[in-house]
């Protein structure tokens, strides 16, 4: 094979095209002079013990001398290729690198929020901003008689039964796995069994008197409210964990968003969608 042939063959190699193009781009466009600092590779004691440690973790025995030499050789090759690759701009437009870097940036952004401990004033402010979220549910003690689906016939039955209940006469409703009497049931519990509209209806009902029919997600009921307890003002002591959970979840999300927005501000964003 002549030199000419070899040269021709080399020119057909994609890798060679790539390297030539990369070099051309580098020299023509970057105009960046090589920094001598970047061209100095120091394998110090710290690097070596790091390599040894990682190897030991992996194979559960320390490496021998030859293996250490091998690790250092590998490390040096890594560094040489890595720096050279960066100089050639090979990191750009590479999906793997892009994703990896994004993950690192995101982790950095939230690391602080994840380990921070909010002080009481911050938590108290969160409670003050949305006391309903942190207070216990309102509680209701009530009796109910279930009359089945909301139909004209059952409404009539309800109208007939109401005066009897008010006179303390026994009334048997439609059999269902619903307690006749509930003592201090939380709104959330009542909503889970009867649906939201029933909770609202109970709030409007008078105390101490049979009333209805009241509609729920299940049908019709006659109800008598025995007592109602307003939600307690939430105290930080009681809800500390919940409000701390909320704070941390919000702080992490905020840190991620804010750091992104801050970085984004330094960029001009142009999106051109295909027609």
């Amino acid at each position, binding site marked *: 094979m002549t030199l000419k042939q070899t040269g021709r063959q080399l020119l057909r190699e994609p890798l060679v095209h790539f390297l030539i193009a990369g070099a051309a781009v580098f020299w023509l466009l970057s105009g960046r002079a090589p920094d001598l600092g970047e061209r100095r590779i120091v394998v110090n004691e710290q690097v070596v013990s790091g390599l040894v440690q990682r190897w030991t973790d992996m194979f559960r025995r320390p490496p021998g001398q030859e293996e250490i030499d091998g690790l250092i050789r590998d490390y040096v090759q890594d560094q040489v290729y890595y720096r050279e690759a960066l100089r050639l701009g090979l990191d750009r437009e590479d999906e793997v690198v892009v994703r990896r870097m994004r993950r690192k940036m995101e982790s950095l952004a939230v690391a602080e929020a994840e380990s921070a401990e909010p002080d009481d004033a911050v938590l108290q402010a969160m409670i003050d901003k949305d006391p309903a979220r942190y207070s216990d549910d309102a509680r209701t003690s009530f009796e109910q008689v279930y009359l089945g689906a909301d139909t004209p016939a059952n409404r009539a039955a309800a109208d007939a039964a109401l005066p009897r209940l008010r006179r303390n006469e026994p009334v048997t409703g439609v059999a269902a796995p619903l307690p006749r009497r509930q003592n201090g049931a939380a709104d959330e519990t009542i909503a*889970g069994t009867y649906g939201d509209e029933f909770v609202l209806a109970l709030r409007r009902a008078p105390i101490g008197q049979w009333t209805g029919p009241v509609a729920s997600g299940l049908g019709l009921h006659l109800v008598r409210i025995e007592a109602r307890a307003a939600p307690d003002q939430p105290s930080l*002591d009681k809800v500390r964990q919940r409000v701390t959970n909320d704070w941390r979840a919000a702080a992490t999300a905020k840190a991620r968003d804010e750091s992104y927005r801050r970085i984004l501000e330094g960029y001009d964003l142009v999106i051109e969608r295909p027609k």
Partner: protein
Amino acid sequence: MRKAILTAALLMATTALVSGCDGAVGGFGKKAEVKDTAYPEQVFWGDTHLHTGNSVDAFGFGARLTPEDALRFASGEEVKSSTGLPARLQRPLDFLVIADHAEGIGATKALYDAPRLLIRDPMLRRWHDLMHEGPAGSLKATGEILRARGENKLPAGLNDPAEGAKRTRKIWDDNIDTVERYNEPGKFTAFIGFEYTLMQGGNNLHRNVIFRDGKDKASKVLPLDPSAEAWPEHLWDYMEAYEKSTGGKVLAIPHNANVSNGLMFMLTEPGGGPISAAYARRRAAREPVVEITQMKGDSEAHPFLSPNDEFAGYGTVGWDTNNLLFNQPTKPGDLPGSYVREALKRGLLIEQRTGVNPYKLGVIGSTDSHTGLAAVEESNYYGKHPGVEPSPQRATAGFVPGMNSGRMNWQALASGYAAVWATSNTRAAIFDAMMRREVYATTGPRMTVRVFGGWDFKADELKGDWVKAGYARGVPMGGSLKAGGKGAPSFILSALKDPVGANLDRVQVVKGWVDKAGVSHERVFDVVWSDMDKRKAAGGKVPSVGDTVDTSRATYANTIGAPSLATVWTDPEFDPRVRAFYYVRVLEIPTPTWLNYDMVKYRLKLGPEIPLKQQERAYTSAIWYTPA
């Protein structure tokens, strides 16, 4: 070449990011504040089977949600799904078990994060590269990992015990801290647990393991890795050792019997020979409950086994032809060991022979979601894994897009949830209810179902305080009738619709028994249904409830069916000499499937094979009768 150099160089140069996360600051207030009721007055809803990004396969499928995200979502908060969609349950759940796969917990993530140069194994290196290629590669890698796992061909690097233990310890401790932070007795119960993903040649023998205890006890152990095991005894050893050394309590819930190719409920012991009393006792003590329905199909009953049950076969299409990994076809002879109704019958058979019933199983439903989202509401369904989160494509995609899983995603069910009759919303009360099997399953809707069995219930029992009577003079679901009662046992049955859901079609009792010749039988009784005056039973069949589903809009109307059905039913064929079980199945009127909601939302044209409506259902734990 270029890619390999780059990946290697860049990954080698990375240093681990240490994101210091402090442990739990302590539990919620004083636990003494939660009072238990004298008997269970309320049903609590939950999911015992949820995966987050910590699961090997979930991470590979693209799940990036953490246990914290999962707990916030289950308790009713809005979170962002792995594919960036806002997600919120229509109604919060009362409890959640994060059940990430124990084997290689965090291993996929570790492989993803590993410096490539240190990955010597060519398979691992291939998966590492695939995962970094993006979602399609990640799915492909995960499919291959699962297959290798099922065939016990996982490279040692992914199973390295020392590395694995260290990684597992870190993830387990972090997970426990998060669960502790979100466990709020009386309001929301967060359980510590894991999935024991036992597999035999691709046949599913998975169990979810749930601890009754908190950090003080559960952190003394690590989740158990089943990698080298073929049968669950090793898990039972682990559970016994845990209870002995910590004084705590732990239970296991098998799931997806439907893709076990008959191995889940065998008549024989793993080593061969019929099941012995000792083996039966051990299994029954460790596994009181089975997960009967979930996204990967329903395991209640199969039409082949129950030809006279017109409602058998819910959610069996696509799941009954092959095992979990789709590498061994299912033979008809495999089916009896794969479905729960048959297991209950086999339990009676084994009990007749040995005196002990290994399959005295209560039932619950759960999601097995791999998205971190316990979302199985039909109109708010987030799919089995991030590859099938809501999108116009998912209705016609493969079950695992980009990989030949042998199944289509439309065969996945938006199912199910666990319903628990407990005396309070606490770890202790919910766990204890599971141990006594006072639990039931639904395919998603939240119907309230109560069942009591006894010897002296009268026809007008429902006019009085029948719940009190039920507990005083009978046993609730999951219980055993005392032998020696007079006449035939009767049952107080009461079902109530989901307050935001569909009316009920009917309540059925499924009876199974074993005759003197040692042959098992079953019969499904329609015991109470809507409009009984108009829907007269003929030839042993109750006419259909009708159908109000408008598939062009994905709507239905509660103009048919009934909001509540109740009766006292006495077994008309009772024979005091034969052992039997009775469980209740409640059917809703037809409603749209998640596929119909997708079709309307995304304006899709779907083929005739894709089901647009269904009758969702509840299955209760049985009540057993044993002759004196």
